[in-house]
């Protein structure tokens, strides 16, 4: 992930806690702070890049761990504030961190894999992150009864849709581990399938 993306995600994740401290009011009353912190990371962890230059001597783990290292202190603070106000958000937060890690790893692995794999990763990100959320926004505007209920399951595949649901005021966190587990499962399966595919052409790297 580029430095600018990292700083953007970090800044946006810290902003709700900063504003709450300055104004002494919750930014979104009833929303889990851990959810607000994780939302930008869920959105940006797998963002595809047009150009890629591998840093010399750095493996995929190195690049994937840096977002987690930046996320953890802010998340620790948010979890503490949630716990202080009587909300238990640790389990869904750990699942979300795992999802961010898998997205980051897949992004690094597939970017290094060459042009075709990069395009696959970009398509997967566009479909699952902004795509599913846009689909649900469109269905929500449809008149009652018109929106097909069979599309509802897609929401469970999207980390961003899950994060958005989690940050809604009064969201029921009892459902979060189940949905988060499903998102993580889909992400891991996708990563495994792509990792088992044909090896990339080394010459494509750095294109």
């Amino acid at each position, binding site marked *: 992930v580029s430095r600018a993306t990292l700083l953007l995600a970090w800044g946006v994740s810290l902003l709700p806690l900063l504003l709450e401290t300055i104004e*002494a009011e919750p930014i979104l009353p009833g929303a889990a702070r851990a959810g607000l912190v994780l939302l930008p990371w869920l959105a940006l962890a797998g963002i595809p890049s047009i150009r890629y230059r591998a840093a010399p001597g750095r493996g995929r783990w190195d690049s994937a*761990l840096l977002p987690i290292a930046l996320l953890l202190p802010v998340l620790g603070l948010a979890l503490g504030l949630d*716990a*202080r*106000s009587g909300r238990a958000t640790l389990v869904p937060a750990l699942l979300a961190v795992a999802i961010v890690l898998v997205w980051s790893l897949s992004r690094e692995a597939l970017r290094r894999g060459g042009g075709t794999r990069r395009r696959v990763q970009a398509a997967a990100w566009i479909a699952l992150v902004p795509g599913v959320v846009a689909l649900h926004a469109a269905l929500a505007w449809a008149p009652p009864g018109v929106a097909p209920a069979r599309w509802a399951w897609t929401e469970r595949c999207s980390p961003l849709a899950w994060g958005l649901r989690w940050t809604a005021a009064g969201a*029921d966190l009892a459902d979060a581990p189940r949905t988060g587990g499903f998102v993580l499962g889909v992400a891991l399966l996708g990563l495994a399938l792509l990792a088992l595919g044909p090896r990339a052409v080394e010459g494509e790297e750095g294109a």
Partner: protein
Amino acid sequence: VSVLSALLLCVLSAAQGNRSWWGEVRLAGPLESVRFDCGADGEVVLATSLVAGEETTLALPFPVRSPLGRDGLATLPRPEVTVLGAGRAEFLRWSSEQPSDAFERLPVGLRARAWPPARGGGTLGAEPSALLLVLALSVLVLALRRRPAVALALAAVGAFSAHALALRGEDAGHPLSILDLEAGQGRGLRSSTAGELDPLPANVLEVEPGRARLVFALRREDGRLSGTASSPTERGARLVVREVLAADPWSRDAGRRDLAQAWVRGPEGAWCSHGAWASGRPLPPAETGDGDAPGWLKAGLPPGRDVLLGRFAQAGEGWLRQVGF
């Protein structure tokens, strides 16, 4: 004129502020979510999982304002229904039995006890030290970006430290609970206040400021309702849930609980602090001084009667206020 004024006052005093009026709805599957829009007063969002062919009728709370209390409900516009799914949902009628009836049958003295100030202590948000720690750690992590394993270990330690720092102190957003009792009534009134509360046990739900738009986010699972009430659009809004208890939970039969601090006022009006009072033990002897009972807890109590004030030892249980101890 006096009788009419008194009657009007009785009608308006309890019922006017209530923002939880129950109504009956009919749902037919397949349904995932139903939204009942109550206009400027708020909305109810019900998550459910009715399958095709399943049909049910149930009662839900609605955050409408009814200036004339339950008698004025019939004049209010019916909530507008929006469904997600191919099923149907319909608002049938306002319930003939309202939970607020039990509250209105309580003695006026019990209903009109004093309340804590809007911010009864505690803080919202992080301590500045915790924020500074997070900022410093983030700079260190960026500085160590070429050694991610070290940066990750440092971040993990920092996350635990930030978590511990955030847990310090009392959260002003945490519900504050008061158990009000009156000797010989055999009933109690539990009141809780916070920015977000469960609206379902409420006999009466009030909100400050009174114009605040309320959202009831409810979930129906295995035939059981659960949910929260909050005011996402009104920052700083405070909800008050008042729950009438059928039995006196502080009676000897019900089992008294430990008090971390107890204060007693005699009929002559002098306050004495008695320190911690363990359940099943006699009241400890009075300590010197009148103690440090919060002013709002002592305010407005009827003169000439014994009063017991207490702070429960168990975290989250809040305060006790009994007149006629």
